[in-house]
């Protein structure tokens, strides 16, 4: 699949990454998507691998997921200051959990990366606390229907936009966003980041909200 982020003009030097710039990027993105319609109709490789694992217990596909996620999960774990061996224990536990709980993966609700992120964060929190991390009640999901393909693609596009917003950030801003999502900032520190970096991400998140909200209402 074409890496869209590489084809997009970066924000000009010195420009801030306010919602305006992001909105501008979204506009360019829209023009692009007209030319690249074919790219918009395929799920990501990760989604295909994960569905093969879920539906066929496909070990080859799992190996592909391993190659993509293991080095990233390890990088995430190493940031907490643990040793390489400890970080690889986390990698192993997270990916084995993904294998065992594959039935819970629903591409219409979450990207593979988002799902793996949740498993990895749960694991890291459980490591430092006695109590299991509280999680919301699982929704009872109806059987998949035709609408799901559309939702899955909408989610893929939303993630593409988030990815672009992240790659357009200045290095120090990007570092701040990474810290926030990797559990290195407290909620008060996140709150204090009313400035640009998280604002950019937030504006992207807001765009995805209406769709997600609509989807969830349909489940009721």
């Amino acid at each position: 699949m074409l890496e869209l982020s590489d084809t997009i003009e970066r924000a000009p030097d010195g420009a801030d990454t306010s919602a305006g710039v992001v909105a501008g990027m979204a506009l360019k993105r829209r023009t692009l998507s007209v030319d690249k319609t074919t790219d918009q109709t395929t799920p990501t490789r990760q989604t295909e691998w994960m569905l093969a694992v879920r539906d066929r217990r496909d070990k080859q596909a799992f190996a592909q997921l391993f190659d993509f996620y293991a080095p990233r999960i390890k990088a995430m774990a190493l940031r907490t200051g643990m040793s390489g061996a400890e970080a690889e224990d986390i990698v192993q536990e997270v990916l084995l959990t993904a294998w065992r709980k594959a039935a819970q993966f629903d591409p219409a609700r979450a990207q593979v990366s988002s799902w793996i992120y949740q498993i990895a964060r749960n694991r890291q929190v459980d490591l430092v606390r006695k109590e299991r991390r509280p999680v919301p009640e699982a929704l009872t999901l109806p059987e998949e229907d035709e609408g799901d393909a559309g939702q899955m693609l909408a989610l893929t596009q939303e993630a593409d936009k988030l990815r672009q917003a992240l790659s357009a950030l200045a290095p120090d801003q990007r570092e701040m966003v990474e810290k926030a999502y990797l559990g290195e900032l407290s909620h008060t520190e996140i709150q204090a980041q009313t400035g640009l970096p998280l604002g950019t991400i937030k504006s992207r998140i807001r765009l995805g909200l209406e769709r997600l909200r609509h989807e969830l209402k349909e489940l009721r």
Partner: protein
Amino acid sequence: MNTIRHHISQPLLAAYASGALPHPFALVVAAHVSMCDDCRARLEAEQAAGGVVLEALECADLSGGLKASVLTLLDDDPAPARAEPRAIGPYPAPVIEALGGQPPRWRALGLGTRQRIIHASDAGTVRLLHIPAGQAVPDHGHNGLEMTLVLQGSFSDDCGTFGVGDVEIADQDLEHTPVAGKGMPCICLAATDAPLKFNSLLPRMLQPILRI
């Protein structure tokens, strides 16, 4: 389903998604999200952002044998589905799970108010409170953050009226006297990261005993 008007703020949702939110508040967020589709959508959006951050991380080198050893651990049968906790009465699933699968056993606090402490540690305290209809919770301020989620009935204070599913987020700038609504007792899930400051002598004296 009634309309929820008071939600979890974005920084708190992001902190919950990242795992940085202290346990007492994480329980309130998980309970609210169980009751509120809007916040579930907003949380999933935060998790999508987290996924993108994970994807974009610079890869770490793996030791040679890791992949092979993980692959040998793959079993062919999917794990038997663990029974997911479910809500019981007004108590959302994460609260039931924290209570060990049972509705709460209460302790009397005096004047008809009851409580059940779910968790108390350096990270803070999270408790269930059961307040008789129309009765006030002693006037108090906060040393830190307080999150209160209504599970049954309602309460009102200077900030407004909070019904089932609503969450009030209060910090040290707020001194309030919540009063339970009429009709039925108010049950709420309240998390604090520091002891409450009561403005009258008697509750202050009882505080060490009651741990409120």
